[in-house]
Structures are given as C-alpha cells and as structure tokens.
C-alpha cells in the first residue's frame, strides 16, 4: 500500500470515488491508479490476459499495466485519468481472479 504523508504541502480537496462498490475519499490530485494503490495497494490490482496478477509499473502512460474499468468503460489507463467526484472504479479481475 501507499500512504499519504500527513505533512502534505498544499491544502487539497478530496473527492468521493467508488472502488469496487465501496465509497472512499481521496485527494483530487490523484489519478485513478494512484488512488487504487493508496486504497488497496498493488495486490489484486489487475489480472493479465495470460492469467497472471499485474499492477502498475510506470505510472506515466507507457506500460499499460494499470488498465482498469472507469465508469463502466474497461481497459482505461488508470495512471492518466484523474479521479473525479462520484467516479466508479472497478479493478479488472482483482479479487475475483477470473482471468
């Protein structure tokens, strides 16, 4: 998991997102992938097409390991999409391991 330092430098608004059906409040500066790494960590982030577990590698739009379902659209690059109020985020095969 990743944790937010409590000495953050700029007061930052938080937004509510829904991750796998559960509500959470996260800093609005985060991208979807960053929010998931804070809320759930890298375990169970994504299941790859070959069946192996995967998680974000680069966080800058290069590796495509952060693919995730956002507001019902599958395979969005989670590291490029900023979080937004009311956003629904679903990990792809995370806890379900359904390949």
């Amino acid at each position, binding site marked *: *998991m*990743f*944790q*937010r*330092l409590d*000495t*953050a*430098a*700029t007061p*930052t608004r938080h937004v509510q997102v829904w991750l796998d059906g559960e509500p959470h409040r*996260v*800093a609005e*500066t*985060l*991208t979807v992938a*960053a929010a998931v*790494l*804070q809320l759930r*960590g*890298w*375990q*169970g*982030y994504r299941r*790859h097409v*070959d069946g*192996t*577990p*995967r*998680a*974000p*590698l*680069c*966080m*800058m*739009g*290069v*590796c*495509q*390991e952060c*693919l995730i379902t956002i507001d019902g659209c599958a*395979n969005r*690059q989670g*590291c*490029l999409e*900023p979080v937004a109020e009311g956003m629904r985020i679903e990990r792809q095969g995370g806890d379900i391991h359904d390949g």
Partner: protein
Amino acid sequence: MMAESRNADIAIVGAGPAGMAAAVTLADAGYRPTVFDMNAAPGGQIYRQLHAPQASDAVMGKDYRRGRELLDAFLQADIDHRPGSRVWWADNDASGTALGVLARGQTQRWQARQLILAGGAMERGWPFRGWQLPGVMNAGAAQILLKQGALVPSIPPVLAGSGPLLYLLAWQYLRAARPPALILDVAPARRYGEVLHQVHRAWLGRDYLLKGARLIGALKRAGVPIRQGITALEAEGDTAVERVRYRHKGRWHTQPSELLLTHFGVTPEPQLARSLGLEHVWHAGQQCFVPRRDATLAAGTNLWIAGDGGGIGGALNAEREGRLVALSLLENEQRTTAEQRREGQALLAARRRDLEARCLLERLFRLPESWLDDQSAETLVCRCESVSRGELDLAITQGGAGPNQLKAFTRCGMGPCQGRQCGESVTRLLAQRLGGTPDAVGYYHIRPPVHSITLGELAAREASRA
C-alpha cells in the same frame, strides 16, 4: 475519414520543461502555440503537480522547486494549452504535419505548420526474473506518487538498479522519515573513483557529482544499507513480490520485501518520432536509440525535437533545448533579433558543456549490455504478450533475424504498450546473438495509433470545428 482539420500554426507535443520553454519563448515572440499534453496539468514528469505541491519542499529537495519560474511563465503566457490530449497519429510532409488528437473521448484532426516534439523520456524497460509481479514498480512511478499525492510506501521498500533517480528517491523517502530497507546499485563502487579521473569532465560535472555525494552521504549516515556492484536481480513470490534476490560479490543473497522499486535509467519515449519515420541512431553512451537531429535540433522539415525525447540531457537541458528549438524556428522564419541570436549561441555553448559533463553520469551508471544474456530463460522480455527470453532465443535459432520477424514469430511488441517496454531489449538480444550492431539490427516498425484508442473514440469525432 476524419472531420475537417483545426489549424495550429505551431504545435508542441508535451508540456514538460522542453515543451513549456519552447511555448513560452514562442509566446514572447508573438506566436500562440498549441500545446498538447497527456497529463491534466503542465510540468511533465519532473515538475508534476508543482502548481500545487503535495509533498513538502523538505521532502522533495530544491531541484523540484526550480521549475516554478518556468511553470508560472507557461501558465501566464497566451498559449493554447490542451491538457488531457493524446497525439495518437502524425503524418508529416513539406507543408506541415497532420495530427490525430484524442481528448475527452473524441478524436480531432489538426494541421500544424510547424511541429515541436517534446514528449520526454520514459524509464527503460530492463527485464529480470519476476519483474512482472505486483510489488515491482519503477522508482520513477513511486516518485510520481510522491509528487501527485504525497504518497509513500507503507513498508520500507528495496530500491534497485542504476542512476541518480534511485538515490534521489531514497533520499526523499529518508526525508519523509520512511527510509528504504536496502539500496542495490548495479554500478560498482570503483566506478565512482574512475570517473573522478576524468578531470575535465569531473569539473564540468561537479554539480552532478556533489549532489550525488550529498545524497549517498545522507543515506549512509542514516544507516541505510547500500550494496554497490550487484550483478543480478530477481523478484520472487506467488501472486506478488515476497522476496528480492540479488548477486553481490559473486554470492546470492535474499532480502524479504513486498515492494521492489527499480530504476535502470531513462530513454527517449520513441513512439511518435518512430511513427513519423524519423531516422534513429544508437547512442553508445546513453545505451539507447535517439532520433537524428541537426545542429538546430530539427529532425525534419518544419519538425523539431526538444528535450529528453531527442536524447537524455535532464530537466535543465530540456528547458534549454525548448528555448533553442523556439529560437531555431524563429530564425527559420527570419524573426530573430540580434539579442536572441546571441542568446541562442550562449544556450548552445551551455548545452555542449552540460552534455559533456553528463558523459560522466552515463559512464557511472552504465548498464551491462550482457544483462539479458545472464537472465534465466523464463524471464519475460515482452510483458504485454508474456514472451520470455527463452522463446525469443528459440525464434532467433529458427531464423528470426530482426525485431519485426521476432514480432511475427512470437508476438513480442504487439501488446498494448506497443513495444515501449521491450523494443530495445529485443534489439539488444538480436545484436548479441547475431553479432551485429544495434543500428544494423534496427527496431520495430511503429505505426499509428501510438496510443490506445477505442473504435468508439475514433468514431466520436467532433461534429464541428470549435
């Protein structure tokens, strides 16, 4: 196919230091450049979130804050800044460049008279056994989390690889009172002595060397263990990393850890330049391909490349090259003043000195070209299509003589990252096996779309011009 074009007199791709500096310089000269950037805010990776910093200055260090002046100038200038825009297609001819831009789920067609590519660098894909496991992340990715939301690992990570970023991130974690468990440096300790013998370069590069010495000194004083000269690295675990294995002084060691942050240097993000068919040459010092540019940083007709996307020079050099490209472009249009021409000469001289000094860093953090040969056969090279080194070896034995043949044989490079993570590993492997140079081996043919785009997004083109 697509709707009528929007026109941009000068288009810039990327809003990192190079793109921002080019845009500000052009805006000062009376132009209004259009800047396309993938991210939500300007700054690139180096100055990410600097408009509203999340981690404190005490944690980030002063180099991060250094971008503030440029960022403010960019935000205040009259620039058509288009955040959240991915340039997924480009086609260049004598009249300019046509661009396909994906923004807010719609695709737009643009026609740019002049194009400046300032797409920056990416962390080098550097395969080792287990690098696809959750719990292995790039050190740069971890630093992005720090910048984006003051996020730090909840457990002390192992940091491994080579390059200044490894020590900078370790130092930042230390400043945040979250020191790493262990640092594994590929560079042997003797290298640090060797580079000091290059007296002229060491003098030119004294700022880099002193900065590095300060970071390493602080980490050592804090008791962070550092192993220099590791020769192999592996991540092991069932569904995520559980332990890190490494070879040091000829012996294997195991460190239990659930988070391994690796960094093996950076390379130009190649996709758009490659898809435009620009010539690339292997840079032996930087150990990667770089696009060919002339002395004015032009890479084609009405086409320029500034910053790390044209070869690795770091943030300050990227800013310098952004200004240089803008001045070259103005000179081309006979719009420069005598003062600007003098400024251009001074920038070129500073660039020469800086790049000369950076040869030291290249030497210091040089990666072993034979690394991939030492990996076990099951090591994934292409993560997207799960192609191992063993499968690539077999394909080479069966007659795969080039990157595009290996692609056809094994599907390496055909996944969603489009070869960004494996391309140069495949070139390197072929060069080793066939005894050729990377230039002779070449690289994948890169074709648009260079970003993933759905058919729906392609179809949802703008109904009318804005």
